[in-house]
């Protein structure tokens, strides 16, 4: 599908420095979109997944949550999405009300497609639940599928797709509502490095094109340094943020960014923070 076949409203109607919200107004770029204040999460089995987490997601951010397995990254993301209540602390939205929070897209660690439904019906789901008819939703579905490079797979069933293609369908499903906040939980962790690099580049351009804010969970230092404008480094037991690293380089970035000092510095800082946290634990 060519670019001109896409509805023009998406890129044309929006001011470059603003992010759209469900309520229709815009949060200025750089202003807090959602803030986690002193948030703790304890599970019924007694595990403290997060302790006194402070985190501010700003409109336009590409924020990575980086940390070792089990440090509470997924939990933090689920709290933001409202899939799980906090045990203590508050989550504040720029709108002042969780009910008026911006439209959210969520990409799970696994593709999480409905195996009985075609690719099209899977991508249709968020709009269907919002009361759209399939006929009205079709242009949106086609748009989302061509954004992820699968315009010809509408009728395919999930089992006919490779792992990477399933993940892209899952991303298309998150994009179909044109969310202003995209939450992604290690979406590329199960993919090979070559595919991952490609998807990283595409994701960055997609973010710029859609003008959305992204919170991206990963356990790869390199992936977070390449993609993000800010990295929140987390440590485990209890889950907390031990460092925030700003990366001053415009998005989208290209392959040569991996050789620039901003990238290398971010990698070094993130690694230092992670090692620092581990050493501190070893000396306890």
């Amino acid at each position, binding site marked *: 599908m060519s670019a001109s076949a896409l509805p023009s409203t998406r890129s044309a109607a929006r001011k470059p420095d603003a992010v759209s919200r469900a309520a229709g107004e815009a949060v200025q770029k750089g202003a807090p979109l959602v803030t986690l204040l002193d948030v703790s999460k304890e599970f019924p089995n007694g595990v403290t997944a997060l302790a006194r987490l402070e985190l501010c997601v700003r409109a336009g951010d590409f924020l990575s949550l980086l940390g070792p397995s089990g440090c509470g990254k997924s939990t933090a993301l689920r709290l933001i999405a409202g899939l799980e209540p906090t045990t203590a602390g508050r989550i504040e939205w720029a709108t002042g009300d969780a009910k008026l929070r911006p439209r959210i897209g*969520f990409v799970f660690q696994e593709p999480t497609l409905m195996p*009985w*439904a075609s690719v099209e019906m899977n991508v249709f789901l968020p709009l269907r639940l919002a009361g759209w008819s399939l006929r009205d939703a079709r242009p949106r579905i086609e748009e989302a599928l061509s954004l*992820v490079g699968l315009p010809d797979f509408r009728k395919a069933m999930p089992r*006919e797709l490779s792992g990477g*293609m399933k993940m892209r369908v899952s991303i298309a499903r998150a994009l179909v*509502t044109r969310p202003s906040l995209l939450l992604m939980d290690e979406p590329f962790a199960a993919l090979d490095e070559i*595919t991952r690099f490609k998807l990283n580049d*595409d994701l960055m351009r997609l973010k710029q094109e859609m003008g959305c804010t992204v919170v991206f969970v990963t356990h790869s230092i390199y992936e977070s340094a390449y993609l993000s404008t800010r990295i929140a480094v987390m440590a485990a037991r209890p889950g907390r943020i031990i460092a925030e690293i700003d990366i001053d380089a415009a998005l989208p970035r290209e392959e040569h960014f991996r050789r620039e000092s901003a990238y290398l510095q971010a990698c070094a800082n993130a690694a230092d923070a992670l090692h620092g946290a581990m050493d501190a634990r070893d000396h306890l």
Partner: protein
Amino acid sequence: MSPEIPHITAPEDEGLTIGTSPGDGRREGIIKARLVGVVLPILVFAIAIGLWELIVRVNGIEPFILPAPSLVISTLIKDWGTLSLSLLVTLRTMAIALLLATLGGVGIAVIFAQSRLIERSLYPFAVILQVTPIVAIAPLLLVYLDSGTAILVCAFIVAFFPILSNTTLGLASTDPNLRDLFKLYGAGRWRELVLLRAPSALPYFLGGVRIAGGLALIGAVVAEIAAGSAGHGSGLAYRIVESGYRLNIPRMFAALLLISLTGIFIYAILALVSHLLLRRWHESALDR
């Protein structure tokens, strides 16, 4: 001047590769293997029947001790008038019982899915009905109900449980991430049930119906034997009891044969329905 549209594409999977057809030699081999797979069981079955016929003839066994297969078939044709009426009675009982069990089992499973508490309070009743042998319940039911209804209730009781337990399990076995997704997009209970839980439960439900089909037949037969009464509504099992009293063993075998065929028929139909409903997506129905 059109904006550049970013595409998320992976280099290696641009299209679905269509499997190359196997070479002629291989295909021939596959066909031969399939043929053997069909022909061999039929052959073994025919040999077994032939042996039976041979043993009866060589030893001159009396028909009231063991009738030859040929005699069973000729009795079936001769008594078709009576037997076919009984077959219809049994089939009807089974069909109604299976239908009621499906409606009841699914309905109650949906109620169970709404609340753990309801499930916990009601499940014991279902288990009690299931574990108490139907042979023991049948005489009791015959005290309270007329024989036709009692037979129907017996068939229902045995068919009900597998549908209930399988559907309950299926409704509870949805992918938790998909459940979260529905929650994220603000889906209500009803839409979650229809769009998510029902399709996830379908394979489990169909498995339950397949078991229930066979059990409904067993339930009907057991109850008919317990009822043991004649009348216009006497099924195949009653014909067996009656033939036993009259020492009409060939007819007994003929009725037995019809019961077996009924069971096979029901199973085949339900397996076919299940295959047609699941073949596009479920592992159990994919071509291997």
